[in-house]
């Protein structure tokens, strides 16, 4: 058997976490454990790039398959990736080291435990994107809740307990239904193996209910309107690294889930529920954009804009077109980069000013010119300006949507106008204008660490805006095959019902 690269990706961070956890606490442990965590997560990133190098984009078959029996005859540990999942793994492996570096300033207490939580989180998230067994998927998917709950609940802001519980309540409630659905699938088909399920399909009469059960979980995680209210609270209270993981990776699990499971397993139900998805996505785009316009707290504003951006993603997925689906995946990767960059930027100024209220800022360009430049790039990425990664995703999605419905595309495009309004207004209120507060006059520009973190996000945002091919190539064949299978399934069903 080949080198188990996927399991290594999953296990490496956990091993690092265990090591850090049991390392003796001497006076300099903080530093050592940080470097250890950095080393582990960076090694994982290199490993993920190596995975990308090995990956064969010309086939839609699952690659790097590993299978081990866990509970005999019932649950198998089965992992493998295709074009849809690989990019999310790389994104996770890319963002985690940045989070580890960023803890320098933000985490004052129990740093060791925090690093342990982040590394375990990484393991679980990578696990989500490569599991090919429903039970394993569920374990990773739900497992991610616990470290996140702790990150918000222990290292969060003033209202951290309320936010942590709200987060937990929402996500758990949705997921319980998914668990029930997974058990039912086992009873109906006798297996939880995703590849096998793809080949035999799920009986069309069960699909609608099962789809709804999965939907309830994914809709909370996305989050879709009206299940989105946990997100602003969670973001506001979470420490910077927590917000970054939440926005960059956790939300993407839902989009990934929609593609892998909702469309893959329940094509007929997916087609049936298109109007529901479109409606909720459109509401999310317009509604949350308007809400974002009026926010007074920077993190809340970005959180609401995340909901709007994820609205585009769900729209694109349910177009079942090449452009729509590729655009959605691209948009998720891009949003992963842009939103983490924005949250990290907020972290940078929060460390200096200890306030997130927009009104307390203004005129930062005079004292923090470098910060002003990088924040401009991120703002433009969020607006979806051509030349940034944000544009490619949004534009492809809208092209796909347009094929399905003019009206939906028109309404969704309104979100693009509003995005420009709220992001530029935010930027203006923080960066431009006269300096009104004395604290701002004394602010120091980005230090080397901050500059490093933020510029390592500037680079991919611009690079993929001009040259998105590496990403689009990777997903192309898998998406093509997914759409073909989907259409074949619909046709078969149509003939059967006739």
């Amino acid at each position, binding site marked *: 058997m080949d080198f188990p690269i996927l399991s290594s990706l999953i296990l490496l961070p956990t091993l690092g976490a265990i090591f850090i956890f049991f390392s003796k606490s001497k006076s300099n442990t903080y530093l050592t454990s940080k470097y250890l965590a950095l080393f582990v997560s960076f090694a994982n990133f290199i490993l993920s790039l190596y995975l990308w190098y090995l990956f064969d984009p010309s086939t839609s078959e699952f690659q790097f398959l590993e299978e081990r029996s866990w509970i005999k005859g019932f649950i198998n540990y089965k992992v493998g990736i295709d074009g849809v999942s690989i990019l999310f793994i790389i994104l996770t492996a890319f963002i985690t080291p940045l989070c580890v570096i960023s803890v320098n300033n933000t985490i004052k207490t129990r740093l060791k435990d925090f690093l342990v939580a982040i590394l375990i989180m990484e393991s679980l998230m990578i696990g989500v994107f490569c599991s090919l067994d429903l039970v394993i998927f569920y374990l990773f998917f739900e497992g991610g809740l616990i470290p996140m709950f702790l990150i918000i609940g222990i290292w969060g802001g003033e209202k951290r307990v309320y936010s942590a519980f709200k987060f937990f309540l929402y996500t758990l409630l949705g997921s319980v239904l998914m668990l029930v659905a997974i058990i039912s699938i086992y009873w109906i088909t006798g297996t939880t193996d995703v590849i096998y399920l793809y080949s035999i399909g799920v009986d069309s009469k069960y699909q609608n209910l099962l789809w709804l059960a999965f939907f309830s979980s994914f809709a909370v995680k996305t989050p879709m309107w009206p299940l989105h209210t946990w997100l602003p609270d969670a973001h506001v209270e979470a420490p910077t690294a927590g917000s970054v993981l939440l926005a960059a990776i956790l939300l993407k699990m839902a989009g990934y889930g929609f593609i892998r499971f909702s469309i893959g397993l329940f094509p007929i139900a997916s087609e049936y529920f298109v109007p529901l998805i479109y409606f909720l996505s459109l509401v999310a785009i317009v509604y949350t954009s308007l809400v974002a316009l009026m926010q007074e707290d920077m993190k809340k504003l970005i959180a609401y804009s995340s909901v709007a951006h994820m609205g585009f993603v769900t729209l694109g997925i349910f177009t079942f077109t090449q452009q729509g689906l590729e655009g959605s995946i691209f948009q998720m990767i891009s949003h992963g980069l842009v939103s983490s960059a924005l949250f990290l930027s907020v972290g940078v100024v929060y460390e200096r000013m200890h306030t997130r209220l927009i009104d307390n800022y203004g005129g930062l360009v005079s004292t923090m010119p470098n910060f002003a430049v990088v924040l401009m790039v991120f703002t433009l990425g969020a607006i979806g300006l*051509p030349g940034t990664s944000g544009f490619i995703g949004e534009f492809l999605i809208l092209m796909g949507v347009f094929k399905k419905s003019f009206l939906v595309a028109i309404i969704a495009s309104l979100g*693009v106008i509003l995005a420009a*309004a709220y992001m530029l207004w935010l930027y203006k209120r923080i960066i431009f*204008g006269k300096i009104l507060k004395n604290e701002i006059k004394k602010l120091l520009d980005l230090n080397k660490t901050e500059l490093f973190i933020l510029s390592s996000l500037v680079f991919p945002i611009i690079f993929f805006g001009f040259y998105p091919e590496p990403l689009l190539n990777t997903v192309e064949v898998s998406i093509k095959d997914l759409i073909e299978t989907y259409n074949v399934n619909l046709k078969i069903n149509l003939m059967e019902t006739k």
Partner: protein
Amino acid sequence: MNYEYLVIFLPLVASIISGFFGKYLGSRNSEIITSLFVSISAIFSFLIFYKVLNENYANNLNIFTWIDSGTLNVNWSIKIDALSSVMLVVVTLVSFLVHIYSIGYMSHDPNKQRFMSYLSLFTFSMLILVTSDNFLQLFFGWEGVGLCSYFLIGFWFKKESANAAAIKAFVVNRVGDFGFALGIFLIFYLFGTVNYNEVFELIPNILDKELSFIGLNINAINLICILLFIGAMGKSAQIFLHTWLPDAMEGPTPVSALIHAATMVTAGVFLVVRCSPIYEYSPFALNIITIVGMSTAFFAATVALVQDDIKKIIAYSTCSQLGYMFFAAGVGAYNVAMFHLFTHAFFKALLFLGSGSVIHSFRNEQNINLMGGVWKKLPYTWTLMIIGTLALTGFPFLSGFYSKDAIIEFAYLSGNTTGYLAAGIGIFTALLTSIYSWRLLFKTFHGSYNNKNLNIISMHESPMIMIIPLIILAIGAVFSGYLFKDLFIGLESSTNFWKNSILFLEPLNHDHPPVWIIILTPILVILSIPTAYYFFIKNKEITNDIVNGNLPLYKFLKNKWYFDELYDYLFVNPSKKIGLYFWKKIDLKFIDRFGPDGISNLVKYISSITVKFQNGFIYHYAFVMLLGFSALLTFLILK
């Protein structure tokens, strides 16, 4: 080596050098590098133009793949044909002159490197826009110039009004882009490609295709044309989407000359001309363009009559002239539209830079009521402004005379009602143009000196580095009409020069219009000069009486037809109110209250009841047990 790469990428390189390394290079070096690079770009643009002119040169370079998703395949490309070569010359030449001028104009500004970097970046984006061979790259350039415009309008970031204007420009343009983007989606939906040539070839196949949209059947070509035109309206500040342009005057004056007069705002006209192979099949859309164009020409001219800010007058004048270009395109005379775009770039840039020189001399004063009587003090600026004004108003044998009169003639010759109407409005607007232009000139340079803050002795002419670009532009303003009229709008221009870059389904009507049409405008224009002098210098009481006699009309014009107030009332304030309502009422008061908080309160409430049973008294437990036991028993018996 292709010159095209140099033309396009030198400004980008200059921008990067000045933007990122400017602080190490120093401001003077940055100015030299950016100006030098853009000047090389301009020289090669002329070379390309020369080759297009004499050697039938045309080229379509693919740089590399941009997006490849399913059937969508887009390349970064450089397309050279007659149309783009004209734009190359206009953009790089004006940009070069503005770079040079800025060295003088911005000499007291601490952020010169940043300014020069933006100017070069703008030039690059504009070149990307005009040399694209597909709609998506066009859109890239389109947004890119919008972004640079945003940066430059808000360049003086400490001014609240400049920031507001910058955001307004971006967002209003986004409204236009919304239409533009939908147009691109529709093109991709219908043809599966966004490449110009492929789309243009397929257009004749779908002449009768109808699309149904919320119950309406719309002709596909009409819809494409209208959507693209919405984008053009935003960028070219046509009526309804014009509100950003006057505000954009918050930016430094060189920016107004380059972006908000000569180049970026003409992108909309360029788009319509570039898409002539589509517009030719949509008489309906062309009619709309004519109507919008002439309304804008008229509306903006009326507003310009009563404004007091020297830059705002010229801004409205730009708006109005763009209206002319559009209605030229609307009557099918695309080449005439391009001709006016070409001549307009010279005289309008000249007027803006000239006004910049005036503002410079008056230490940033922009109100023309606080100027006057300085023509002897500013002899070069005065002379050059007069040349610009003459060219703009269409004084015989200057550039505006050839292009503007051609527009009116072709509108008249198009032979339909809209055409006659457009010609009529064109003539009347030409008169208005002349009046407001001379009003500006007289109030600025003649009459008595009205500025109390500055002593007239302290007035001095701008440095030569600012005057020389003006002189070059003035030469263009005088001669560009006469020299290029045959090339652009002559009888054989379509076959000799434009070739397949502009499609004419039917050759343009080259009959001679009645003599009165030809001589009416010049006569009005010439007569308006002494009239304006009389009203604004000699006998101001009459003007005041007219104003006081028509106060409601005056206020209406003064407040720019109340467009800003209307939009605040219709869009801005409701958006804010709705956003607040969604957030405070629906998210917090409804979803949270009945959702997570409701559930947790319910659980708390129920547990607070059940907790009462667990009070530790054995007899309570025994009693509950007894109840349960008997209930179970009853159930089993009954069953």
